[in-house]
């Protein structure tokens, strides 16, 4: 009897969660679709965003993300390789760096935004700019990248490392030809995960990349990211709800596409990985 009750409760909770999610997504769809049109996607906002479109904002978003990836990926990959291949995982240095990265991963985004404001915009003098925003986002992406890349590399079985060592191959050569290709699916999935997180970011950007909703002329121009646009429309612009929902729909779609891509790539690579030549 108690058994039936318990199982029923589990089903109910799962159902409740599903309903809530459907409610949320449904609302976004219902309220967002009317706002979407070709003009919406290709024009600049007017009347503080109540009318017009989000084109410059999309451009800014892509630019900020690009800066973030260009900084975070090399840094993160090198760190991950060093942690996975050149240090003992339970040695003192490896442990401390691991802890530092874990803490960094948990730091609230607003605090990272504060840091970005004080350091990139202030100390380094970048002001409100896409560059500053991108660098701040890179700080947020770094722990995720390092963690996923490192676990991807350590998951590669030792037998290939031993075989390569027995053949007298240099570590760099083994990494390039065997280990990194084998870990590529995990690394790519991690990158896409980090990009998804960065795309959703708002708090870290309001004080670093700024609020300006014009088309940015260069990386040192201020630019507004999509998530920041949604925030502004819903909180500061009366009557901006319609445009906000439209932007929200675009943002959610973007993130869904990124996650889908990550999953597909993982599957595709898992099947193909055997034939890397």
């Amino acid at each position, binding site marked *: 009897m108690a058994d039936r009750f318990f199982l029923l409760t589990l089903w109910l909770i799962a159902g409740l969660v599903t309903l809530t999610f459907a409610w949320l997504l449904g609302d976004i769809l219902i309220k967002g679709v009317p706002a979407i049109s070709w003009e919406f996607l290709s024009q600049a906002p007017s009347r503080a965003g109540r009318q017009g479109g989000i084109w410059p904002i999309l451009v800014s978003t892509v630019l900020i993300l690009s800066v973030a990836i260009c900084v975070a990926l090399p840094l993160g990959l090198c760190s991950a390789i060093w942690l996975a291949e050149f240090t003992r995982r339970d040695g003192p240095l490896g442990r401390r760096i691991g802890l530092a990265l874990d803490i960094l991963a948990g730091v609230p985004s607003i605090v990272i935004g504060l840091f970005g404001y004080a350091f990139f915009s202030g100390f380094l003098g970048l002001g409100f700019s896409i560059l500053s925003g991108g660098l701040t986002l890179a700080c947020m992406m770094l722990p995720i990248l390092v963690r996923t890349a490192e676990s991807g590399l350590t998951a590669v079985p030792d037998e290939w490392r031993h075989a390569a060592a*027995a053949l007298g191959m240099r570590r760099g050569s083994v990494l390039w030809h065997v280990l990194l290709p084998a870990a590529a699916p995990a690394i790519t999935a991690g990158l896409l995960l980090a990009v998804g997180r960065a795309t959703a970011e708002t708090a870290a950007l309001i004080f670093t990349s700024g609020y300006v909703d014009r088309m940015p002329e260069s990386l040192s121009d201020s630019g507004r990211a999509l998530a920041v646009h949604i925030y502004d429309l819903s909180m500061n612009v009366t009557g901006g709800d319609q445009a906000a929902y439209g932007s929200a729909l675009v943002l959610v779609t973007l993130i869904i596409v990124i996650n889908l891509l990550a999953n597909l790539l993982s599957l595709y690579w898992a099947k193909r990985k055997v034939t890397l030549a």
Partner: protein
Amino acid sequence: MTDSTGLQKGIESPYTLGQVEAGSPCCEPVAHLQIRDLTIAYHGLTVLSGVSLDVYRGCITALIGPSGCGKSSFLACLNRLTDLLPGAHTRGEVRLDGQNILAPGLDVKQLRQRIGMIFQKPNPFPLSIRRNLELPLLERGIRQRIEINRRIENVLRDVGLWDEVATRLNSPATRLSGGQQQRLCIARALILEPEILLMDEPCSALDPLSSAVVEDLILRLRGRYTVIIVTHNLAQARRIANYAAFFWVTEQSGKLIEFNRCQSLFEAPQNSLTEAYIAGTKG
């Protein structure tokens, strides 16, 4: 202690070596590797102590004994693979043509190109067959396409894989059967033209048919290469080895109990432990 030709001069043989019989199948014994007083410990725990023996050029030496008595560690030490294992410490001397390969300043990469290793579980890289064989060559600095192709064909013929894979060199190595993969690994080790081959139970992960093929291959390597093979299969040792070294665990670490020409060890063992192990009453 040894001159440049490697002939043993005046080193005390601390093991029981039977009368060396001249003639086939192996040569006049010329020491290729000389191991003296080798001790291996992991994280302070000794797994092998005080091992001394000579490995003769061109001959197949089998290391037999129950599991856990340090045979694989012994093998790993010979090409300095113990450097990769955490917490491993080695003491003693291993001389290859007079040079101590356990010395700290040694160029390990050069050493490993002279001493190749085959592992228990076949481990071809997750790449094509051709790539598996190319990588060691590229690492060595050999880049001319003609030379590479020539070596690949030679080595695949040597291991008897050429007819089976000549038409599909670009297909993934992991699609080969277990026995073929192991032969590919042997080919990969041979392509660098090493002098010595270390084999850690190369047939134990294979089915009987593939096992026989690989064993046959090992036999054919005799004379051209010096082979040291760890095996649990006593019958296999009898079939292919010229010399046999018997290891056992006493006083909590592995020790070399007896070393002899293979026939002598099996037919007239000097040590009672050896006799018991071979008869199957122990281990």
